[in-house]
């Protein structure tokens, strides 16, 4: 074998080694992975709700006014705040979540829940109601859903609260 031929073969070998090495890197950039099995489905609840505020106002007492400078004396004192709410989620009669939901201070209530569900038809029961003894409350605050919902493997069902009440979605608008 001549020197030139040997050198030529060496260059071919160099490119072959480099090509295979980069091939391994390229192959590792497209690996199949089952992030979640197709046998799973999911229920998601997501909405943001600005709770109405209930306040009871009264004139201040002399004692309350006496401790304040003239320019800081209010004409009336209102007590109250956003109405607390509670949420109950049940699937086929089994309660998944039940309890109060709060927004933190004066902020809106933010609901975000995820539950793994076996594909198939399931009876979904959701209640979202003002949980307070204060009376009277504005009408139409409590929301309720009772529906049989089909869950498909590999898909999520989203329950959200719009102006017209609960909406069940299986497609992104």
């Amino acid at each position: 074998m001549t020197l030139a031929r040997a050198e030529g073969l060496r260059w071919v070998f160099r490119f072959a080694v480099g090509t295979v090495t980069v091939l391994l890197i390229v192959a590792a950039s497209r690996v199949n992975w089952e992030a979640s099995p197709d046998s799973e489905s999911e229920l998601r609840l997501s909405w943001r709700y600005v709770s109405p505020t209930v306040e009871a106002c009264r004139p201040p007492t002399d004692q309350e006014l006496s401790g304040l400078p003239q320019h800081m004396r209010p004409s009336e004192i209102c007590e109250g705040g956003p109405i607390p709410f509670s949420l109950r989620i049940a699937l086929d009669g089994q309660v998944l979540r039940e309890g109060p939901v709060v927004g933190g201070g004066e902020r809106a209530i933010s609901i975000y829940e995820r539950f793994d569900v076996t594909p198939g038809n399931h009876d979904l029961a959701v209640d979202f109601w003002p949980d307070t003894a204060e009376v009277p409350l504005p009408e139409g605050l409590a929301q309720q859903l009772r529906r049989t919902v089909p869950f498909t493997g590999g898909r999520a069902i989203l329950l959200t609260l719009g102006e017209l009440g609960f909406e069940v979605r299986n497609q992104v608008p």
Partner: protein
Amino acid sequence: MSSIKKTLRYVVTRLDAALNRVYGWRFNPLYQSGSLVVLALVIMLITGLYLLLFYRIGSPADSVARVTAQPWTGRWIRSLHRYAADLAVVAAAVHAVRMFFQGRTWGPRALAWVSGLFLLFLIYVCGWTGYVMVWDLQAQLLAMEGARLLDALPIFSQPITRAFVGEAPPPSPFFFLNLFLHIAIPIGMAGALWLHVSRVARPVLLPPRPLLWGVTGILFFWSVAWPVPMYEIADLLSLPGDTTVDVFYSFWLPFSRALPPGLLWGALISAGALLTAIPFFTRPAPDNRPQPSYVEPRFCTGCEQCYVDCPYDAISMVARDDDRGYELGLVDPALCVSCGICAGSCAPMGVGPPLRTGRDQLEDVTQFIERQAPSGSDVVLVACSRSAGGSGSEARGTPIYPVTCVGNLHTSVVEYLVRSGAGGVLIAACPPRDCWSREGPTWLDERLYHDREAELKARVDRRRIRVVYAAEAESGLLSRELQSFRAEVNQLGTASADADIDLELICLPSETEGAR
């Protein structure tokens, strides 16, 4: 820690030797790992500029699909962009492993280590935003899992995962922010890269041209032969089942889906803290810590060679406080890594680490010659402790004179060995791009053959001197070179010792020498 280093050193040095056989040390990609990261970033920058022309934040998946559908340009440019991103991660990991087992992580090099970790973090964040830009199933996974991780932190008043719950498509501001980060982060990378190399002189940012074009060519080849397709577009109400993911940027997904976010954050923070603390863990005990170089003022002639040769810019020239008209070298101990290359650069032997200055080396070699008494047919092996000659196992029967780095070796030592009657001097050095002190073999070659200070004097017979670049696991190469050199030396005839060697003449400066 030392057992981890030993294991890594064993594996990597064997890989080095294997690739040296294929590519030679000049083009061994493992020796160019840092510059390959920069090459990958440059490729991403150029291809990214093209992709940016077509990306639309209002319809991200459609715009990427349009680019991918361009058969002559967009398809392979997009693939080249992605494959370069993967190469950047691989090369950065190789670079970090090399620096770790070579002990180049503590002291003055701690800044390079920590800034390197930060650069790798930026590469990952940039890669995350790049994959999300495509808005396919992998992007959906990365976005949702990233949001889930961020929600575990007490930052947001509402969970940001709600943006990906399926109430509506992600808003355009999300893609705008993503694109902004993807473009802004590389600008930050430029700054981090500047910091990363700020403590080295003459940083080599790109690989040699044959390797540069070879790597680019192979990446281009696979971009054309196996381009990245357009995968299934993201559907927020679809649970990502079989998804195609990039192992280099999505390796954390299985953990994020299996572990609680708090636990994953704990693991990430712990890993980051451990890596950042490596300069602390790898720092030798005070008794074993190599001492920085120092300049002996009475010997310094102000020639500036040590200042020029120092691979870490640790030496500056300052005004003297005596009546000599030239400047004095001053070593900054905070920057000096004690490689000793300054000692090899100094003709009057006025600088160097303790016990490794030129004068110390002459004392050592004098004792070596008295002990070993090399004959006129003997070849003395001067071996860098990190080269193949470091173990000494392949040179039985050969007198071995060890050095910590061939850059530290003063040419007067070589001259003394030859003129003391040794048949030949074979210097075993690490391949220049693998020198643990960066420039040792380069300066040695210049001093022996190209009159760089402190040059080997013309009176020394060059036929009796040879330099071989043999990496740690290339003992076979060293053995063959030793045999070959012995045969050459035998043909030259037996060397005889000079009777009139005056060490004082060799190492004391003339009183009339001054700054150049």
